[in-house]
């Protein structure tokens, strides 16, 4: 082979090699291009200008198919980067700046091997479909003595990888947040039951710091019987895959914990709750355990969720204690009302007994009768009567003290509340309720609950009277006029007949609740001005509100109305006959009165309460 032949061969080989590389360049998935500025960019050009020149005054002199495809065109050669929408996020020069400063930095590094000038940079751009692509870009600046002459670049699309990494990071953050926020203790153990990681809640349960715990890797967690009485050891749990049941977690002794951990007070507090009523000893905590086991290359992984049962139990106990206390208070206040209600009524007969006994003693002595036995008996009767009255008085003052919580209320609000509570009953009985509330100031200083109870009680009475009368009307329309308000009572008891609904066109059952304020503001002002002369409060004109509850039922026979307020006198309703007695006692303890008056077409009950503007006498 002569020189010519070998030259030809060499040239052929070179051409083949070039064609081969060209082919590689064309088929590779990476983008390869060369960008040449219209004139070399001097070394000292500020990055901003450099970026502008690269983007606006340069042309691509090379660009493979992959690069052209990325921008949705046939060829990029001869084009300017600003012609390619999305190139280097061209809308945002920051990417171009990044590239330019990298290029300049490499220039500033001084003349050296081109190889070492390779600069790697992560950039993003928007492709022809509008998707953001992440590109790992290797830049090869080419310099002349005049400055940067060209940039070669190989770009690899790493979008999928970046997105996966993002997802993974988010997922990690998500689980980290869950573990850190969870109220339950969470820990991970390897196949040899060494602790790998745990959250703070778990560390708190063991009364150790998380760092110490992870460092030592020692956790004493002993599963007890599971829900289905599964055999319980972590080995058997590993076979099951997952497990749920109770377990014993051994805590560090509290004295040590107090010495070593910053949150010693907290640790002691927990120890207290763990100790409380538990037979497992001070260092053992009864917990609920949920465990999941997975297999990794190095063996089993136990994921344990631990919940402090002793604490939850004490919370449950506190809750039920609270409920019991509430019920107790409710019972006590009912008892208190009954006591205060009947105390007054019992006082009357007791006082009468004492009076009779004392009267007898005086009569005897005035007649000169001197019988020591009789005298002693009579004085004993009086003495015991007084004693009984005394007991009742003490009970009464006790119950009063407990139930009195007076605050200013608008009486219309209190009444509305009571009506609200009666709505279901009224609805069931098909009774309409109307209100006519005085529009003037109606503020009373009362125990709102007590006055509400009085109102509720009077409304219930009216409902009972109305439904009872209707029942009689419907059941025995032919029966002669009887006792509409007295179901179950004998005719003889009443001794009189009342015109009943059967002889009167039946009106729709209705309850009316009215308030009237007296005297009116003007009247009371007038009364006040006349009385101030003597420095005296107006007696007959104390401002008060009268609350009236009226129904259009059959009314109450006179014989019954006389006994209405007797304790334990019931009209055969559901009550025990204390409602009106208690109500009257409540109203009187508020300085008001409660009475019955026959209405125009039914019964009406009225009670008064002093208005707040009333002069305070004390």
């Amino acid at each position, binding site marked *: 082979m002569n020189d010519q032949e070998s030259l030809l061969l060499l040239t052929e080989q070179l051409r083949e090699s070039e064609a081969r590389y060209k082919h590689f360049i064309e088929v590779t998935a990476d983008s390869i291009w060369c960008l040449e500025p219209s004139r070399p960019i001097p070394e000292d050009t500020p990055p901003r200008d450099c970026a502008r020149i690269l983007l606006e005054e340069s042309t691509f002199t090379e660009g493979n198919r992959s690069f052209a495809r990325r921008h949705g065109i046939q060829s990029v050669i001869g084009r300017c980067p600003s012609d390619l929408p999305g190139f280097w996020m061209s809308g945002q020069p920051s990417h171009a700046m990044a590239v330019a400063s990298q290029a300049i930095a490499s220039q500033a590094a001084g003349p050296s091997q081109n190889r070492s000038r390779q600069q790697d940079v992560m950039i993003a751009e928007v492709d022809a479909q509008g998707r953001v692509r992440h590109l790992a870009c290797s830049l090869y600046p080419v310099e002349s003595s005049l400055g940067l002459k060209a940039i070669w670049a190989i770009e690899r699309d790493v979008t999928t990888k970046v997105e996966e990494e993002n997802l993974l990071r988010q997922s990690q953050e998500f689980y980290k947040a869950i573990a850190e926020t969870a109220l339950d203790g969470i820990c991970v153990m390897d196949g040899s039951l060494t602790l790998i990681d745990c959250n703070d809640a778990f560390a708190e349960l063991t009364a150790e710091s998380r760092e110490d715990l992870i460092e030592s890797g020692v956790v004493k967690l002993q599963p007890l019987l599971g829900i289905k009485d599964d055999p319980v050891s972590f080995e058997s749990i590993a076979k099951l895959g997952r497990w749920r049941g109770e377990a014993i977690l051994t805590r560090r002794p509290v004295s040590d914990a107090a010495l070593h951990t910053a949150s010693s007070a907290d640790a002691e507090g927990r120890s207290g709750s763990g100790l409380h009523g538990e037979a497992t000893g001070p260092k053992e905590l009864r917990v609920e355990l949920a465990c999941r086991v997975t297999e990794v290359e190095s063996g089993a992984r136990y994921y344990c969720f631990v919940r402090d049962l002793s604490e939850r139990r004490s919370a449950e106990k506190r809750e039920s204690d609270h409920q019991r206390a509430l019920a107790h208070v409710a019972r006590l206040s009912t008892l208190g009302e009954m006591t205060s209600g009947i105390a*007054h009524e019992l006082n009357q007969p007791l006082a009468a*007994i*004492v009076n*009779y006994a*004392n009267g007898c003693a005086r009569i005897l002595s*005035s007649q000169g009768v001197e019988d020591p036995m009789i005298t002693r008996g009579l004085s004993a009767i009086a003495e015991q009567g007084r004693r009984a009255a005394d007991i009742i008085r003490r009970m009464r003052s006790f119950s009063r003290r407990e139930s009195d919580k007076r605050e200013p209320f608008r009486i219309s609000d209190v009444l509305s509340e009571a009506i609200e509570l009666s709505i279901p009953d009224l609805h069931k009985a098909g009774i309409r309720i109307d209100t006519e509330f005085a529009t003037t100031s109606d503020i009373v200083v009362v125990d709102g609950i007590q006055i509400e109870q009085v109102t509720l009680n009077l409304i219930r009475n009216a409902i009972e009277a109305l439904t009872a009368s209707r029942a009689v009307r419907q059941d025995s329309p032919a029966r002669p006029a009887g006792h509409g308000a007295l179901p179950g009572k004998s005719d003889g008891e009443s001794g009189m007949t009342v015109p009943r609904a059967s002889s009167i066109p039946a009106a729709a059952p209705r309850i009316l609740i009215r308030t009237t304020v007296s005297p009116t503001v003007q009247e009371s002002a007038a009364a006040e001005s006349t009385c101030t002369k003597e420095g005296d409060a107006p007696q007959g004109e104390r401002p008060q509100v009268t609350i009236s509850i009226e129904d259009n039922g059959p009314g109450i026979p006179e014989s019954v109305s006389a006994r209405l307020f007797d304790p334990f006198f019931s009209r055969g309703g559901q009550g025990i006959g204390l409602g009106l007695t208690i109500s009257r006692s409540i109203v009187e303890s508020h300085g008001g*009165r409660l009475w019955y008056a026959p209405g125009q077409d039914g019964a009406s009950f009225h009670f008064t309460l002093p208005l707040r503007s009333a002069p305070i*006498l*004390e």
Partner: protein
Amino acid sequence: MNAQPTVFIVDDDPAMRDSLGFLIGSVGRRVETYASAEDFLEAYDTERPGCIVLDVRMPGLSGLELMERLHEDRFAPPVVLITGHGDIPMAVRALKAGAFDFIEKPFSDQVLLERIQQALQKDSQERSDEQDRADFERRSGRLTAREKQVFELVVAGKPNKVVATDLGLSQKTVEVHRAHVMEKMRAESFADLVKMAVLLEVTGPPQTIE
């Protein structure tokens, strides 16, 4: 006029009412009982001497309201109110409304009877004062206009000489008028006459002099 005073008991509780009547009656007092303030007002005659025993807590017209109603009359009998134990505001109201006294339940019979005794004394005193007043008024009605003038000036503490000057009379004439006044008023002494003047509310100098 009825000499024997009556204790009027107003209480809605039948047992209480009756036993109070029994107790008060046991010491020989005359007693009448009423079940309500309304009943009492209907039957009551202001001419009858006595006192009222009232339960403050009654349906209908309350004890306080009854008292207020009674005080509308010029002449109200003393009222002993029975209040619930520890009902201080009510007791204060009662006294302000003009109650003679109040007693708290439970009360001792001794205290109640003493209060009633005192109330009756007060009533009797007031009635006898009223009686005297009526007598004095009748007597002063018989005085002549000149005698009335002399009466008023004399009880105002003016000596005869000054009275004579004031009225433009001689001292001798004033002395005669004064003697007539003493006689007509049946006053036994000057002090007696002044007492009558107080009851009749004739004090101070006359408004006009003729």
